């Protein structure tokens, strides 16, 4: 690789050929501000349209300023990142963006987390010299995502996520010039589009243009309603990220504090989605084994691979794009919905509360969960199994509204019977976790022997597409893992073409799995944060005394008292679902 010599702000630097000015500068401690640019290292996610023009720098001999994020360094370049010309241009560009941006920072959902706000502050902008008309678009409300496009700054990050990473293809730039904006085709509403509500657009939006549908108000009303019993379930990935909202370093596990906070907020029972994750493993694992055995016995009606079905964005994705494959995914509902279903039957009976008076709130790292809970098949007589699905970020707001000093909270324990969980359930929160959990149970059921080891390192990691073969006591089981819908699409296309070598595949819509979900604290383009959350998840697993789902005593009890056996008729009715052709 050829090396390039250049100077940046009079400092000499040597970089590899192909390095951008931005990277070259950063390697010697010069932080050129960027706005539209986003790169998630090692995850193959990069957005560099060169559109915002905030990172422009002066290059000696060049006619105009160069965008540092997408201009390669060349031999002998002399760059000035803070010449008066560059500073003036940078500030003017940000002023221009601000001149076409609603100045409602004080009440904006993104206030404090807004990259544009931070940029204005960073550059010390105190006056907008070029005022004028502001573009105006109607707001678009969907069950999960709110588009307030007046706040769009055309950074195109959402477009990169939606098209390049997720291959969903809903969001793209429409219209021209001052009217240009990112929107679904024909500017249709999101809920008419093929949007999966994965929320990755929200996760990367630098401003308040894309936010979640906020349901904290409804939850507060339920909590203050004396006729209601309000219970809460928390997804595995939430505990690995919630602390970030309260200033803790990424990767801090806050399970105990989270439980304590929820209890202070007035939830009557604080339960764990992890319990339902263990339940999912029993149902899905049993389904896997029965399909696997039938397949190996040569049953022509059985199709493999089996695909996981806990991710609602993924479910909506294949319903739109691969409806002919809708028989392949497991019929098991997601843990959120299994929890809701059991809570409003088994648990409601147990505490003697009518279904209508039991409110199930879920805390999810996800925005698609809001949509999932609103799917009609997950309601009984119009009463949903899960009433409200809040994101991790919404929970943080709720905690603040409850005047809870999160950092000083003691650790608290989940309530029973729906609060007990195993290490297998915790790892549902990261890519590779669901299938590892399934393997832990399926192996022992299939072989009748205890696992020689619990940790399957071969299933872990951050590569978008991974595969491993697990030896089920002489039977090799091929496992595929994809996170990010674009990666999932590749595996599905292989299945369509009849080229799939896998027996089972885990698919998570969001890069990194649920830890990188659209409802998590904003990562602001820092992929390290996701990796730290992943490490936290695996450490929680390690610290659990029970690490296999089928060993969860409360699950055993649930089957004994209520469901009978996995895949029983009752289990089918309450814990399984079917899929629809939405193409």
């Amino acid at each position, binding site marked *: 690789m050829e090396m390039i010599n250049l100077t940046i702000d009079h400092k000499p630097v040597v970089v590899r050929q192909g390095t951008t000015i931005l990277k070259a500068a950063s390697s010697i401690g010069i932080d050129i501000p960027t706005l539209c640019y986003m790169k998630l290292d090692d995850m193959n996610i990069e957005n560099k349209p060169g559109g915002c023009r905030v990172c*422009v720098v002066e290059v000696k001999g060049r006619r105009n300023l160069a*965008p540092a994020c997408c201009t390669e360094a060349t031999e002998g370049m002399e760059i000035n990142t803070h010449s008066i010309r560059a500073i003036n*241009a940078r500030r003017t560009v940000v002023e*221009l*963006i601000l001149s076409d941006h609603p100045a409602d920072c004080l009440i904006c959902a993104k206030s404090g987390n807004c990259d544009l706000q931070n940029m204005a502050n960073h550059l010390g902008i105190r006056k907008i010299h070029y005022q004028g008309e502001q573009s105006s678009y109607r707001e678009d409300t969907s069950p999960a995502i709110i588009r307030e496009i007046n706040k769009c700054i055309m950074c*195109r990050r959402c477009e990169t996520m939606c098209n390049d990473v997720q291959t969903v293809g809903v969001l793209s*730039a429409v219209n021209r010039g*001052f009217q*240009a904006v990112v929107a679904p085709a024909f500017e249709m509403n999101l809920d008419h589009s093929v949007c999966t509500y994965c929320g990755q657009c929200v996760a990367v939006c630098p401003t308040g243009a894309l936010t979640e549908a906020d349901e904290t108000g409804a939850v507060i009303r339920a909590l203050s309603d004396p006729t209601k019993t309000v219970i809460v379930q928390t997804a595995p990935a939430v505990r690995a990220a919630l602390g970030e909202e309260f200033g803790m370093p990424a990767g801090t596990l806050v399970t105990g504090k989270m439980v304590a906070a929820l209890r202070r907020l007035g939830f009557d029972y604080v339960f764990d989605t992890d319990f339902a994750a263990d339940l999912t493993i029993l149902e899905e694992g049993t389904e896997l084994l029965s399909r696997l055995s039938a397949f190996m016995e040569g049953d022509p009606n059985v199709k493999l691979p089996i695909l996981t079905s806990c991710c609602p964005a993924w479910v909506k994705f294949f319903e739109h794009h691969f409806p002919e494959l809708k028989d392949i995914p497991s019929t098991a509902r997601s843990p959120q919905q299994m929890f809701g279903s059991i809570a409003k039957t088994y648990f409601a009976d147990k505490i003697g509360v009518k279904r209508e008076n039991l409110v199930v709130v879920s805390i999810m790292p996800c925005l698609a969960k809001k949509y999932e809970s609103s799917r009609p098949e997950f309601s009984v007589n119009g009463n949903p199994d899960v009433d409200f699905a809040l994101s991790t970020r919404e929970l943080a707001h709720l905690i603040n509204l409850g005047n809870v000093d999160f950092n000083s909270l003691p650790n608290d324990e989940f309530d029973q019977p729906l609060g007990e969980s195993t290490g297998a359930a915790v790892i549902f929160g990261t890519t590779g976790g669901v299938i590892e959990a399934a393997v832990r149970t399926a192996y022992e059921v299939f072989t009748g022997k205890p696992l020689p080891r619990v940790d399957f390192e071969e299933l872990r990691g951050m590569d978008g597409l991974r595969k491993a073969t697990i030896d089920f006591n002489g039977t090799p089981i091929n496992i595929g893992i994809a996170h990010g819908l674009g990666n999932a699409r590749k595996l599905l296309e292989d299945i369509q073409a009849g080229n799939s070598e896998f027996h089972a595949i885990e698919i998570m819509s969001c890069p990194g799995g649920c830890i990188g979900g659209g409802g998590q604290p904003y990562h602001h383009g820092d992929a390290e944060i996701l990796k730290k959350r992943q490490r936290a998840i695996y450490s929680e697993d390690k610290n659990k005394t029970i690490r296999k789902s089928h060993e969860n005593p409360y699950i055993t009890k649930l089957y004994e008292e209520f469901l009978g056996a996995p895949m029983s008729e009752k289990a089918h009715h309450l814990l399984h679902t079917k899929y629809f052709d939405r193409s």
Partner: protein
Amino acid sequence: MAEYNMHILVCGGTGCKASQSELIKTNFTDKLNEYGLTDEIQVILTGCFGFCEKGPIVKILPDNTFYTQVTPEDVAEIVDEHLIKGRKVERLLFIDPETKETVGDSKGMDFYKKQIRIALRNCGFINPENIEEYIGRDGYAALGTCLSEKSPEEVIKMIKDSGLRGRGGGGFPTGLKWELTRKSVSNQKYVVCNADEGDPGAFMDRSILEGDPHSVLEAMAICGYCIGADNGLVYIRAEYPLAIERLKIAINQAREYGLLGDDILGTGFNFDVEIRYGAGAFVCGEETALIHSMEGKRGEPTVKPPFPAEKGYNGKPTNVNNVETFANIPVIINKGAEWFASIGTEKSKGTKVFALAGKINNVGLIEVPMGITLREIIYDIGGGIKDGREFKAVQTGGPSGGCLTKSFLDTPIDYDNLVAAGSMMGSGGMIVLDDSDCMVAIAKFYLEFTLDESCGKCTPCRIGNKRLHEILEKITGGNGELEDLNRLRMLSNVIKDTSLCGLGQTSPNPVLSTLDNFYDEYLAHVTTHKCLAGQCKALMHYSIDAERCTGCTLCFRNCPVGAISGEKRSPHYIDQSLCIKCGVCAAKCKFDAVLIA
């Protein structure tokens, strides 16, 4: 093979077609049928003659008679008088505005005298729908020579030596571009012809494709041979139906004759051309945007490098040239690089096609040698300013260009001189302005165009141009302040400095160049709130001179908003709060009593 004694060339360019030139052709055919002369006299629909001001044009050969503004009804007289009796129809001949005498032969017209037609060599000469006529004019000989007798390197050297530069606006040396694409290593490369002509008032590329499509196809094949591509794409805007039609016919004919397709002229070289349609976005003239549009993506530019020569259509090395650039190529091969380089100036060789428009007598399409002066174009070829008014400026380079004033009338026109004068060559639009044009309004007009045509990708172009336009609206609306002039300049400079593509980088040029050259007009708008050209309505003030007003009530009766009052036979007056400045009163007054200030 039938040979004809006479040829009647009827202009089939878009402008003349709109004036029924097809019916003219039909009438000729019918009339000749009637007289049994169809074996002796041939009627041909050609491409544009360029002299659009006086279209439809009919040219009779061999005596080279040039008839102007011919109507379908004139055909009978031309046939009876000219073709049968040999008497030219005088009333249809061009009248020299200077001598007031008729000019029978187009060679005697000033409009053509100073032109050198290279790119337009076949426009108005051959039937564009007949490949044999093109072949008869050395057509495809250049391709044949290249394939049979020259190596790609030799051809590229010829193009480099000729000094040909891109005619689409940028002026990048064509030979160098070909060489760069040739050097890119790939199993697949593309030749793209940029026919997405978008400057307001410009129609040179359309005319070439309508009048001589084969010259472009031939050049694309030559380019393919040089860079190692077997695939050519013409990106053309769907609003050019006639050009598309003629291009399609040309492609089919070339395939039929084996001049496109596999094993061309037995040399083993394969090359074919497809058409891709654009939706008429100005920004798609920018080569990266054009390529994205062809790929079915949103037509917006991306940062260069990588240049299309490295990574273009479908990620493969792609050479993009404009129509006019291509049209020059076969002539360079046939006549030699030295011949071509002998025309023009030191750094700008050959000719340039310009679309003359605005306040000029001879509106039309002209091809002139580089180095010609504006004065020659405007006064000799263009026949001077309309209605004898005073020349104020000429806008060149379209919305990316600037205004050249009187002081540049004698500057030789080439790429570098135009840039030095604060404008640019652009694709060749030339709009002539006279003393009734307000330069602030002109700048606003061009900015309006850019605003509509910006793709909206980068901040300075998307929002900056909007703000520039708002400031100009404020000024022409009579609310400008001195500080606005400063803000215009500062913002323009930032937009130029930071925009992603050529569109944004040049969009403030009309503002900057008018600010530089007509600062007085701007100053008048913002200080005394006067529009010197009398064009900005909001700055006009209508009042009635009591001395002159006879109280005839004509203005009172014609005012559409009832802003005028007064007794019969006594002076009237205008209520300024009601006046909409429509000017009807001034137009109606017989006593020049309405004062406009």
